[in-house]
């Protein structure tokens, strides 16, 4: 498997404040989640199912490296942990089409998205999603050409050696190409930006002390652990 090294001026996590791209994540991109939640979506506060891609941001403080210990926030019994394929944008991407979308992608990383459980999807969940270190990223990218069928990637998280539920990108409501087109229809992605393409809404439970190993087809696994909150209870 070939790997492409991301360009960066200084060592450390790939993206540093000032030099970094912006990290966007796609939520509710698994058909199984959308089906499960369809009754909820028909009721207040939602009313109808989502039309445009449901997106969130992970701020730069969330970046962490393979091997990191990530502090569990205070008053949070466990975090949810799940994997996204992480597209790294190579060229300015506006109004992409299915024909040209993938040409704007430098490569794909493995992102482990840690967040405090939140059931409500009504308002942005900044507090739950933007904790320090809550997005460990693989230190190498995999070229698209080495990944094969983007609609056949599988991912799962092992928690303390126990394999959790797996998902496949075959289950995406918006394919990776479709997502790139629909996001760039209204906003430009810049070189170095990262687009997390979709993960189950509910992740594996990761309590303080847990050792996590994140898997994604075509990638070496990524290992992190969850450390207890430093704040007094």
């Amino acid at each position: 498997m070939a790997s492409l090294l991301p360009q960066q001026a200084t060592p450390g996590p790939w993206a540093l404040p000032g030099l970094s791209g912006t990290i966007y994540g796609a939520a509710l991109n698994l058909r199984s989640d959308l089906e499960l939640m369809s009754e909820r979506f028909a009721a207040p506060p939602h009313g109808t199912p989502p039309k445009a891609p449901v997106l969130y941001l992970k701020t730069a403080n969330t970046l962490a490296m393979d091997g990191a210990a990530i502090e569990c926030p205070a008053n949070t019994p466990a975090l949810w942990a799940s994997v996204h394929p992480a597209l790294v944008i190579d060229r300015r991407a506006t109004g992409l089409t299915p024909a040209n979308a993938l040409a704007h992608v430098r490569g794909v990383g493995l992102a482990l998205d840690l967040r405090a459980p939140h059931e409500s999807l009504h308002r942005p969940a900044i507090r739950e999603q933007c904790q320090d270190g809550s997005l460990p990223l693989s230190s190498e990218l995999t070229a698209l050409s080495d990944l094969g069928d983007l609609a056949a990637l599988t991912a799962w998280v092992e928690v303390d050696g126990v394999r959790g539920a797996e998902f496949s990108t075959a289950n995406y409501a918006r394919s990776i190409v479709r997502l790139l087109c629909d996001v760039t229809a209204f906003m430009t992605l810049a070189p170095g930006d990262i687009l997390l393409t979709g993960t189950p809404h509910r992740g594996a439970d990761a309590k303080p002390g847990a050792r996590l190993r994140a898997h994604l087809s075509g990638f070496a696994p990524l290992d992190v652990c969850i450390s207890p909150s430093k704040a007094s209870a």
Partner: protein
Amino acid sequence: MKHARILHDGAVADARSTDGENGPLRLADGKEVSGREATWLPPVIPNAIFALGLNYFDHAKELAFAAPATPLVFLKGPNTLTGHRAESPLPADAKQMHPECELAVIIGARAKNVRAEDALDIVAGYSVANDYAVREYLENYYRPNLRVKNRDRCTPLGPWFVPREDIKDPMDLELRTTINSVEVQRGSTRDMIFSVSDLIAYLSSFMTLNPNDIILTGTPGGVGFVKPGDVVVTEIAGVGRLENTLALDDASSSDQEGARK
């Protein structure tokens, strides 16, 4: 001393001024450029951009929402920033795009768990923002959603970075918005639900804030819809007068923006 970033001779230049935005801007090499002739950029290169929904008592009433118990915070990407006197794209089918005058707070230090009483110590300075919204694109998922609030060049910022020490009290500033010189918003930062200090304490309680993080602190009441060609001015006393013009963007439409299944 106010700071600005402009384009000069094809390159980005830092400029300083003790004057208005049509006055002389002094560059690092001592050269002076007229503010009237300059191409203005956002005065700060952002790290994270936080924005507040429903952070003024009268605006919450206007939107028929109860004042939130915790700050309603959302995030924006840097693609959305544009400078003073720029044009912002108005989508062809948008009838409900409206400006929102906001005090922008620029963080100056890396910090976590900042107490409200110490919060202004980590502020580097202030600017004016116009957090345009396109209401018809609102959806009830992570609302306000990115299609409303993260559009390219739809958040003017500037003209100035005003250092913290030049603003006596950020919680006593008048805000005003006009569309073609007609007032559509007037308020005061006194009416914020969560103060600048409250917001810094809240955010830093669960994440590390970094230099050049920007907090757009919300907008008072008054919703005025814009048309192509409209000139919008958002101003905050002592911080600046930020001008923007709307230009029709006929490349965008609901059809093209992933709003279909």
